[in-house]
């Protein structure tokens, strides 16, 4: 198996998503609150997996704009769950050594007195291994 194919398979496995179920209606992209910040749009994620272009996916800034708000998961008429694909891509990045999106050094300047623990904990989970 080629490495691209392998990565695509891994993404399907981690996410539990079958991209072939997508009918390309665009409801996920119509729903996404982060749409304008994303370079690869939610509805395009399935195509990248089908075309086995995981390289582009993992380098996409969209990974760090997704809020895990599950609006796309909730409204998808085909039960595709694009949000899970995005998270799988995120996982594939942060599970590699040295690829954390949030570095310990940058944290102090991001803090303010009101900031709840929950925010740090959540960001750690999504952005770091």
């Amino acid at each position, binding site marked *: 198996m080629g490495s691209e194919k392998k990565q695509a398979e891994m993404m399907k496995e981690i996410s539990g998503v079958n991209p072939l179920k997508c009918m390309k209606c665009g409801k996920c992209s119509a729903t996404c*609150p982060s749409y304008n910040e994303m370079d690869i749009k939610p509805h395009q994620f399935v195509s990248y997996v089908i075309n086995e272009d995981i390289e582009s996916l993992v380098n996409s800034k969209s990974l760090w*704009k997704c*809020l895990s708000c599950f609006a796309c998961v909730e409204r998808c008429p085909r039960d595709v769950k694009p949000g899970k694909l995005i998270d799988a891509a995120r996982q594939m990045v942060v599970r590699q050594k040295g690829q954390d999106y949030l570095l310990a050094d940058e944290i102090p300047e991001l803090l303010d007195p009101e900031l709840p623990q929950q925010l740090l904990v959540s960001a750690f989970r999504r952005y770091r291994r």
Partner: protein
Amino acid sequence: MKYSYYPGCTLRTKAKNLDAYARVSANALGIDLEEIEDWQCCGGVYPLGSDEIATKLSSVRALHAAKEKGQSLVTMCSACHHVIKRVNDDMKNVEDIRTRANNYMELPEPYAGETEVLHFLEVLRDKIGFDELKKKVVNPLAGKKIGAYYGCLLLRPSKLLSFDDPENPTIIEDFIRALGAEPVIYPYRNECCGGYISLKEKEMSKNMCEKIMESAEGFGAGMLITACPLCLYNLNKSTGARLPVVYFTELLAEALGVKEEAEKEVQA
């Protein structure tokens, strides 16, 4: 009415009041919240990957502790509720995760999702009943126009959370009505505040919260209530419309006439 109670990390730090208001109100309503021993942080977000096990174990511990006592597990924070409820579903319905988590845990008896997970709002709705709650209100919040801010975590994915209609929820509105105030329904009440994005992308979250605030204000809300410390934090960062945002438990304590008691507790 005895429940196991999982407060979560933020309710011990930045959101002490969310917890204190809830406790004194529960007391007033005859609900006994027994905090489970040595609980650990749920992680704040549910690990979506189907191969994630270790990140779910703290939730399993809490769930198991409740099971041992034969009690339902009550949560207060939206995020904790989301994470624990979904992990519980995994333990109940996903064989692979159940087996592997149990292998880690080495419990005397395997845990298989037996515990019922309830958000405190669900306790009020389904166990006490909003009609009953209304009867216990000593200080009705008449004249207040309040917008419920649900956010994402309580509602979605609706099949797993089975909390309320994900697009047109009513539980917090009914809660507001029970307290004698007037709920304001506005379409952005289930839209995301930005969540954890506000750590690194402060602008994004701010824009989202502005839309929420604007919509709520446009429909006539005088304040917003929420169950989530992160939503509260993000909404308070909105620079446009600035409605006060408080925890739902604060209003509850106020209506039940026990607010001061709780405030004393927080200060102590």
